């Protein structure tokens, strides 16, 4: 069984938002809601500035607070390591939304259930990469199987220093960030 994860190479992200629109269309995300977003965070004073481009989405945590807190078992882990929501079991109580440290969930008002990134599970089953990865213009989003030592992401994570978001809270995220800022003269 694969164990899916995503690597975000932040240096390659050019902030073009192709991922965001691809996700919306692929997953019929209701107006004004997003399952993934790209943040552009600038620090410093003119002209000594640095930018972090950060794509954010559900981290499909190994120890997912949303799974723990879900009263109906709608939020659950699947064998491929992803966190999914069983819409039939979800009662829309929002406990998962408040428990998620990554602000990755929202209520789908059209369906009355919690919603979030699925790693495009329906595409994975067909052998396709998630929609955001498939169209990532900068090649910043890289997806694959951590259990396969030869997968592109396994190779990348072995040879590059990487981090996860809010590591200290111990959620065990499966979205990894790598970045090499240019040194500026």
């Amino acid at each position, binding site marked *: 069984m*694969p164990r899916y994860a995503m690597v975000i*190479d932040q*240096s*390659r*992200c*050019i*902030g*073009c*938002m*192709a991922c*965001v*629109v*691809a996700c*919306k*269309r*692929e997953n019929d995300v209701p*107006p*004004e809601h997003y399952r993934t977003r790209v943040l*552009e965070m*600038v620090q*410093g*004073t*003119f*002209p000594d*500035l*640095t*930018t972090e*481009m950060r794509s954010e989405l559900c981290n499909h945590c190994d120890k997912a607070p949303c799974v723990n807190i879900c009263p109906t078992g709608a939020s659950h882990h699947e064998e491929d390591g992803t966190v999914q929501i069983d819409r039939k079991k979800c009662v829309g109580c929002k406990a998962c939304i408040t428990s998620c440290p990554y602000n990755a969930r929202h209520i789908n008002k059209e369906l009355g259930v919690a919603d979030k990134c699925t790693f495009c599970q329906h595409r*994975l089953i*067909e*052998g*396709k*990469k998630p929609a955001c*990865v*498939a*169209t*990532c*213009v*900068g*090649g*910043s989003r890289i*997806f*694959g*199987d951590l259990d*396969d030592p030869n*997968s*592109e992401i396994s190779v990348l994570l072995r040879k590059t220093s990487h981090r996860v978001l809010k590591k200290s809270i111990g959620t065990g995220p499966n979205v990894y960030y790598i970045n*090499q800022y*240019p*040194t*500026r*003269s």
Partner: protein
Amino acid sequence: MAFSRRNFLKFAAMSAGGAVLADTPFISAEARAKAEGGNVKYVPTSCEMCFWKCGAIAKVVDGKVVKLEGNPYHPQSRGKLCARGQGGIGQLYDEDRLKHPMILEGKRGEGKYRKASWDEALDYVAKKMKAIAAKHGPEAIAMMSHGSSGDYITNVLKAMGSRNIAFPSFAQCKGIRDEAWLLTYGHKPGSSCEQVDLENSRVIVLIGTHLGENMHNSQNQEFAEAVGRGAKIICVDPRYSTAASKSSFWLPIKPGTDTALLLAWINIVISEELYDKEYVEKYTVGLEEVKEAVKKYTPEWAAQETELPMRQIIESVHELCRYAPNVVVHPGRHYSWYGNDTQRARAVAILNALLGTWGRKGGMWLPPKAKFAKFNDGAPAYPPASKPPLIRGDFPFAGGAGVTQVLRDATITGNPYPIKAWFVAGTNLMKALPNQEKTQDAIDNLDLLVAVDIMPTETVMLADVILPECTYLERHDGLYKIKTREAGVAIRQPAVEPMYETKPAWWIGSELCKKLGLDQYAVKGNGMDAWEGRMRRQAKAWGIDFDKLSKDTGYVTIPGSERPYITADNQPFFDTFSEKINLYSEALEEEGFDPVPQYEEVEQPPKDMFRLIYGRSPVHTFSRTINTQWLWELQKENEVWLNKKEAKRLGVKNGQYVRLENQDGMRCNKIKAKVTERIRHDCVYMVHGFGHNAPQMTRADGSGADDQKLITKYIEDPITGGTGMRVNFVKIIKEA
């Protein structure tokens, strides 16, 4: 060739099945639909959310387009689409689209129209055209256009004997650059795309070019590849753009002084003998003249002029020379900045030549080698122009794409002869041309204004007759010659039937020919299949397998056309009089211009005013996409970027609404202030294309501010006629 990430993915995409997840598992559009069964079909076509012409694949379920993907075979998309390309479905299903032909009732601008049948609308147009041609001559009928639809209307005008056809993409965009490179290399710096070998570059210089925000798919893929690989970026921009954030050198230059920097760099490269001596000796003429002409442009002088640290000017060019020739100074694209822009483009072209980038890996690739048979489907030659066209004005190097404002001026004055009808196809002239009052004055002088478009833009809603075109997902267009490193042919074909009463522009043009008694220029055959028949004949003439193109791959390569780099048996050809790269231009000299670029100061803003500069958003194409659902949702309005210190001085808070008022007292819509460290103190910036005044575009109307409204002043480049538009100064008015 290095095994780049792109190649890895391409390779992965080809190896079907197994544990490898493919980016776009694409076998063939038809085979893929069969495999999935049901009411699914995949239609390979060409995107028109911008003009890069990416290959797109439309997934159609039960007659509706549900998803768009990038075509992996097509070199402009490589399996990916940008946000706009992904969002193209929003244009197709935009409920605000033009739905049927309309004829004006009442005064222009009041927006009162009656629905008309196609027959009635085209009869009306043809009758008016005939009357105007009879009274004033066919040259009194002019056209301005952007995109594919214009091609078919061009045909009508030419068949009548008018050549008064102009494209804003020339004088309001890249025409200036193209002419400068033609003068230097005898080639434009690209046709389908700029010939920049970014994926192999070791140093990339961007001058105002804000890749990332200025979203052209494959070029941005290569830019990100270069950044990811560790290429050094030298970014010259008064604004800390996305590209600047990826740079090793950010040069926050004083606006209007780019040529000073370029000339100082050229001086350093020559005086320190850092240029590619063998290359310059073999392929260029005029080194000595350039050396002499740039002597005075010392780094000290440039530092003062550009307000950049001298150390930065010197170190950045040394870095560039260190890795030459595997470097490129990007030729740029939108070039109509200050009215002296041809010479800036010349300086960029000369610097590239000194570094020996043309035909070198990581520099600029050589154009592909391919010949396409001439094809006009047996139509007779056009009659000669009834009168010499006005599209070049007094500009000796204005290109064949025409100078729009020259046509506009002639329409206002009636000199040297009257222009009484305009066709406007696929361009929102009110937002494309500087000085909206002049555009309105010209329109007021017309006896006929016909708009061919898909949306009820402010320009369309001034028309006497509105001919609603269908979107790119509903129509055939020409077979496209795609010139990247290789030559290829791509197709645009409908994914779904046209909605409402909209029609493809080829049909509109063809029917108009018939109404005008110019049947010999109409598309052969009848019905909506006629154009496809023509495309088949064209494919045959070019030796292309049409069925493979239309059902299978959407793009085919011309084998053997890719010869990107100079080798012993692949020598570059420079289509200039000297058959070499003209560092020194005799052609310019003969017309009384500087044969080597010289620095000209531009006017600086008075105290308490800022220079207005503008640029692109990755989720919008000019004003064309603002109303498109998901793209609008991502960016509903633009912001005005204002330096933090200046904002503090003026008491403007981040997120506060302000208005800008220019030197002529023109005010824009209210616009949100983005108070930021990311811009110099002497300029403000906004994304172009917002601030629609088009009530029928329900999402876009009134959101954000229109930069073009504030661009009342423009300075014409005396060489090409390009309109310098970054010459307007604004002050900030706080909203009560």
